[in-house]
């Protein structure tokens, strides 16, 4: 099962490394995918984000590195999907949500894991608040 993470999930894992979200990311029944631009943005503004997370920049960098151990979705892989109807639909809700749908299409993900209420409402079969267990 393939699952793309959005910003809300990545941040929950970064701020609470012993929390429920972080524990879920250790599941071996799921292939986790993270858009590279998310981690690039975090690293380019490391001090600012460290302040928000209430940790030192070095601590946040270590946590970001642990996210980099997941599978990356590069801009190049998302490129063919920029104009897909589902990506456009997401952009009408919020332009900042579009890249996650492009990432889902790029890796043919089963789910988009998000806490974003608008995405959950707009894509009820694709966007999930809790990633279901894989079928045995």
């Amino acid at each position, binding site marked *: 099962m393939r699952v793309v993470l*959005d*910003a*809300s999930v*990545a*941040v*929950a894992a*970064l*701020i*609470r490394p012993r*929390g*429920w*979200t972080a524990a879920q990311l250790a599941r071996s029944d799921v292939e986790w995918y993270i*858009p590279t*631009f*998310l981690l*690039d*943005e*975090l690293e380019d*503004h490391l001090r*600012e*984000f460290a302040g*928000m*997370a*209430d940790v030192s920049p070095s601590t946040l960098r270590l946590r970001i590195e642990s996210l980099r151990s997941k599978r990356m979705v590069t*801009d190049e892989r*998302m*490129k063919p999907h*920029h104009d897909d109807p589902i990506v456009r639909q997401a952009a009408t809700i*919020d*332009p*900042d*949500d*579009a*890249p996650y749908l*492009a990432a889902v299409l790029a890796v043919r993900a089963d789910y988009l894991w998000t*806490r974003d209420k608008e995405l959950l409402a707009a894509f009820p079969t694709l966007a999930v*608040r*809790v990633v279901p267990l894989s079928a045995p």
Partner: protein
Amino acid sequence: MSRSVASAKVTFEVPGELRELMAKHPEVNWSAVFREALIRHARTLDIAKQILEEEEDLRIAKMTDRLKRGAGARYRKAVDARRA
């Protein structure tokens, strides 16, 4: 780190109608059925509580918003650059 907790016996009151229905199926280990249902429900509640704690964490909300905006702008810039 795991913590060992001794088993405890818990008594439940069930409606008479249910008790009669259960009595019709003596082959069923009702104690195990109750135990499984309780475990499932308790775990669901525990997960819901943990998710709620994360969703109510203002640091997470604030940083998510900032990251989403920054990453979104980065993505649009990449898309525009390819189209140009």
